[in-house]
């Protein structure tokens, strides 16, 4: 057994950062939400279902979802040039894949649901926060869904697994270094998104999945509360 691993911010290995969610933050949108994990803040807005334009992209068999993930230029310490880049394009598509399995889009032939995600402030885990906000915004917009989707990043720092990495932890340099494993799943445990960046053995990755399941359950409860509270407020 190695010495007990201490996280830079003193959190327990399975402890989430302080997490907060709120729906209805953008009045113009059909559905909207904010999701915050520590210092990472994501906004999501949903518009639609509406007729797909351009027309040649319409599918008479089913509706479609389009996701756009974007980081604000001042959400990170090195200013990002506004506009799309390769990273944001990939995350946009990953987000779509993470959400599409729960959406009952077959009810909306020739139509499209647009999901726009903006990262206001970033401290790692932005794609997960974006997916969490987007799932909330979709539910808030009244889109029929089989289930919710919750997302978390599991990290392996040297040899130890932890949940909900910060930027400081992502840049961990000791031992085997950092491994980042963002995972999204439904509340019933169906995995809709899985990525990994680093090095990890087969046994430990299985353990990471179980940790993700537990963490996603916590995220799910936060999402549930946010949606339910939006009615009370009314």
């Amino acid at each position, binding site marked *: 057994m190695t010495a007990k691993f201490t996280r830079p911010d003193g959190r327990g290995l399975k402890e989430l950062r302080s997490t907060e969610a709120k729906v209805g933050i953008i009045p113009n*949108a059909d559905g909207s939400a904010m999701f915050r994990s520590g210092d990472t803040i994501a906004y999501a807005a949903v518009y639609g279902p509406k007729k797909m334009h351009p027309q040649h992209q319409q599918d008479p068999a089913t509706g479609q979802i389009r996701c756009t993930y974007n980081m604000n230029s001042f959400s990170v310490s090195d*200013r990002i040039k506004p506009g799309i880049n390769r990273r944001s394009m990939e995350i946009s598509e990953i987000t779509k894949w993470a959400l599409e399995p729960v959406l009952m889009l077959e009810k909306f032939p020739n139509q499209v649901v647009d999901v*726009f995600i903006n990262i206001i402030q970033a401290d790692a885990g932005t794609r997960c926060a974006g997916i969490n906000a987007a799932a909330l915004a979709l539910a808030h917009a009244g889109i029929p869904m089989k289930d919710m989707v919750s997302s978390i990043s599991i990290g392996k720092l040297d040899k130890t697994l932890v949940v909900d990495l910060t930027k400081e932890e992502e840049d961990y340099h000791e031992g085997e270094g950092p491994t980042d494993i963002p995972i999204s799943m439904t509340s019933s445990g169906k995995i809709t998104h899985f990525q990994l960046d680093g090095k990890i053995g087969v046994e430990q990755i299985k353990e990471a999945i179980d940790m993700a399941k537990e963490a996603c359950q916590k995220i799910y409860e936060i999402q549930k509360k946010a949606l339910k509270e939006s009615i009370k407020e009314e």
Partner: protein
Amino acid sequence: MVDKVRTTDRVTGERIAKYLSEGKRFDGRGPLDFRKIIVEKGISKKAEGSVRVKLGETEVIVGVKLGIGEPYPDSPNKGNFMVTAELLPLSSPRFENGPPKFEAIELGRVVDRGLRESGFIDFEKLCIKEGEKVWTVFVDVYSINDGGNLMDAAALGAIIALKIAKLPKYDEEQNKIVFELTNKPIPITDIIPIPVSVHKVGDAFLVDPTREEEDLSKTRVTIGISNGIISSVQKSNSESLSIDEMKKVFEIANEVSKKTLKELQKYF
């Protein structure tokens, strides 16, 4: 109304215009009243300065970032300045993905001119080494919800973001910025270029339009004005104004700017 990209309908539009001709607005304001300006500072820890500005349902966020660059040859001892605006599709069904459309480009440029020309920023103090190295100040504006008058909301946000921004640490040997804020503010002056966009709806003039009112606006004149001194003007849209009307617009801007400055100073 298809795809919810609706503008204010004709019937309601006529009502709004008629009511305005009596000097009244749907939300109870007088024609020259701004909505309450709500400012939240420090919305991104990763920016040298950042704010959220709300005017009614309108919400923008503005961030200031700094970089190191070369000065332009015609101003070797002055820092660089750049304003970019993104009208996010997140904020309105009217905005689309893709390269910036004219509305966003105009917004960025008009905000830029108001700040640049007024003397609000002391550009010479942004010089690190004449002819070689200067600070570049980036101001980036994002719309979060378009409830009318994004223009003034953006410019007000830029003023406060610049006012509260701190310079990051500059490592001269390695010639790079270390993101660790110093106590040094960005060199700004007491000249605050208050933005006032005056709109003509029907035959009436008003400021700080709601989305519905902006839909009905035939022309907009955005003025940057500080203590009665005008430093930038942009007349937009294809409706002409008479000479007397144009003169009146400047009087309105002058009057409104004083009230706006007072409101804004609460956040300095």
